[in-house]
């Protein structure tokens, strides 16, 4: 970093990049290898055929294309904003090297600019790995202007970064540091889930595909989406028209720069307030009879639940997964009343799968993200006892959440409720057990990156969750293949149990 002046924006940026690259390469070599393999496969089997097919085809901008591209951009922006808002909120509270940077003579806006850039570009990698294989080959085969789509994605992430920062610091100013930590995370989760919920509303409200299609065609033919309209500017930018592209990219950069300049001083102040907020005062101690009661099992379960409830970042992530469950439960209950057998079976399968994923997330928190493992090892309890307690703590909230809908389901269709309940129970316990077998110790704040801990473990959770889902679907349909699905699920569990030593290694 000798070629740039110490303390400059580029110097700070180089420092951040160095830390980020070293962190990712060291922590997740297998993940990077898999991503590289995925990109190569997507390029070979989708990007190159697309490039050859579209070699001599010129894209004519129509209302439908404008609407389609605009919709994709809205979806992308929402997903990016969910991530950047969450990161921006955390950035205010995570100390790390922030104290060092803010106590140095470097201006606060410069620190925020680099941190903001990191916040904005962090979620980009996954989208770039999906977009580049589809855009680069056509660009090489006669459509170079399409490379603008990559530029637009970066611009979109910069804009999402700026809006994320503005929202986080706006919340901080309005509702204070304590509530921002919780609300910022929950808001980010809601934004992230909003698209899913909108997507599910089609099923929830029984909207027919034809109705949606005619609504889309109607909108596409409206003057608002004509190629010369203002709403067509982003689409034209994506397709590489220079003026719209420069306009959109320039707007995103300007928004980011203004946010950083305006918020720079405030960021420094807010971060110091966030660091200095006194620890929250809890409810006064109850009588000795209420406190200090229960044995090791109760203490462990209570501790895990308290830690989960008091961690806004974790809570929002779990909340996000719960949001994914809600439409499924709704659809299932509605279809049971209308006797739509196929949809009931699919709904049950989906419910079982998402419950297993939620169980896996909770089990990772309680089992792998233990803050004081030595304390538990030094305690007079066996490892298996502690594991049972942690598994109980992980599954309790899930069962508490699903018990009521399953009971309602039992009122209308006892057999289906039995299949759904048994499926949820077995799939959740299986997900918890896999977390035990392939334990990958980590810290709670690494929840989103927990997948890099044990690749085999994560694959096992996905595969076994899917297998239980198929089994539950088969059970609801009383299909001839249901026992075979159960057998495959059992064999999968046995295989992963046997392979647990390999997974840990």
């Amino acid at each position, binding site marked *: 970093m000798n070629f740039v002046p110490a303390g400059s924006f580029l110097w700070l940026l180089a420092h951040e990049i160095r830390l980020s690259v070293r962190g990712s390469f060291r922590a997740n070599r297998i993940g990077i290898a898999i991503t590289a393999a995925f990109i190569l496969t997507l390029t070979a089997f989708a990007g190159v055929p697309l490039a050859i097919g579209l070699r001599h085809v010129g894209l004519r901008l129509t209302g439908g294309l404008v609407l389609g591209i605009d919709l994709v951009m809205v979806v992308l922006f929402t997903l990016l904003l969910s991530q950047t808002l969450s990161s921006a909120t955390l950035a205010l509270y995570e100390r790390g090297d922030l104290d060092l940077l803010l106590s140095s003579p470097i201006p606060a806006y410069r620190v925020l600019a680099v941190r903001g850039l990191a916040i904005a570009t962090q979620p980009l990698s996954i989208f770039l790995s999906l977009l580049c294989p589809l855009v680069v080959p056509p660009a090489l085969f006669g459509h170079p202007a399409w490379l603008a789509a990559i530029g637009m994605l970066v611009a979109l992430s910069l804009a999402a970064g700026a809006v994320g920062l503005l929202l986080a610091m706006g919340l901080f100013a309005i509702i204070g540091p304590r509530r921002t930590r919780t609300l910022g995370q929950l808001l980010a989760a809601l934004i992230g889930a909003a698209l899913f919920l909108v997507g599910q509303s089609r099923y929830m409200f029984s909207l027919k595909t034809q109705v949606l299609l005619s609504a889309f065609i109607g909108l596409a033919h409206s003057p608002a989406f004509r190629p010369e309209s203002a709403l067509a500017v982003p689409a034209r930018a994506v397709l590489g028209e220079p003026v719209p592209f420069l306009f959109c990219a320039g707007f995103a950069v300007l928004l980011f720069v203004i946010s950083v300049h305006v918020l720079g001083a405030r960021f420094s102040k807010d971060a110091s307030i966030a660091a200095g*907020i*006194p*620890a*929250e*005062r*809890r*409810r*006064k*101690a109850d009588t*000795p*009879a209420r*406190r*200090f*009661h*229960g*044995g*090791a099992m*109760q*203490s*462990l379960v*209570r*501790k895990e639940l*308290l*830690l989960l409830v*008091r*961690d806004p970042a974790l809570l929002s992530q779990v909340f996000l997964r719960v949001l994914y469950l809600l439409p499924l439960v709704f659809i299932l209950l509605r279809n049971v009343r209308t006797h739509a057998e196929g949809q009931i079976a699919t709904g049950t399968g989906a419910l079982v799968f998402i419950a297993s994923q939620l169980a896996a997330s909770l089990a990772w928190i309680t089992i792998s993200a233990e*803050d*004081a493992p*030595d*304390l*538990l*090892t*030094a*305690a*007079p*309890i*066996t490892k298996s006892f502690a594991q049972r307690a942690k598994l109980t703590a992980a599954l309790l909230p899930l069962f508490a959440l699903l018990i009521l809908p399953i009971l309602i389901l039992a009122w209308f269709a006892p057999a289906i409720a039995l299949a759904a309940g048994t499926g949820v129970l077995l799939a959740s316990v299986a997900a918890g057990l896999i977390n035990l077998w392939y334990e990958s110790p980590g810290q709670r704040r690494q929840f989103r990156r927990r997948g890099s801990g044990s690749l085999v473990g994560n694959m096992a959770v996905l595969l076994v969750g899917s297998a239980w889902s198929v089994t539950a679907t088969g059970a609801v349909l009383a299909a001839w293949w249901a026992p075979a699905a159960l057998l495959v699920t059992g064999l999968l569990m046995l295989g992963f149990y046997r392979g647990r030593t390999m997974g840990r290694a």
Partner: protein
Amino acid sequence: MAAAEIGAPSREPALRLQGISKRFDKPAVIDLDLTVRAGELYALLGPNGAGKTTTLRMVAGLLQPDCGSISVFGIDALADPIAAKRVIAWLPDEPMLYDKLTPLEYLEFVSGLWSSEPVSAHARAEKLLRWLELWASRDQRCEGFSRGMKQKLALAGALIHEPKLLILDEPLTGLDAAVARQVKDLLQERVKEGATVIMTTHILEVAERVAERIGIIRAGRLHAEGTLEELRARSGLAGSSLEDVFLELTGHAA
């Protein structure tokens, strides 16, 4: 916190290590024999990487020795680790706390792990928190605590279940003079009540002032052991400070 609760004086040594070895990439502890009497405050000293923490982690049941035996008040800690852990408390140099729990909740959790009797555990928690000047913060989450407050709370956690053998790894690191004094007083108080304390420290004045016997470990082996006077005699530095004796015995004397 009556002495009777800690236990009647035992004829068994509090700790007996025989032929303990542990190897990581290279040998960390080699054929170590060590005996700590019940009711004494024993300081285990040694240069960085000498094997002190590894030894104590094996006693606390956090590491399995490659060979040898560990006996805690006559209990074979390798054959029956749960029974041994019941009478041991382990306090590492980095406090084992949960940021999102309050001090009272933390002590409640630890006493639950050791299945302590609820009413007396609550009374002990209050007494410990008052003694360590944490009572006013009893309902605040630990995330905002200073290093000293965290270390004091971890110590309270180690004492909440009335351990007969208290193992402390660098308990005074990073503490200011006032807090360090509180911790030292508390440890001496526990010894008076009949508990046994084994501690490692780099602050030799502390060992000089509070330890009844001192063991010096070097390259994984017990290099010297005895009272301060015995160590002085062995090093040939009568009347010298423990620092001089330590440097002489570990071969770092100027």
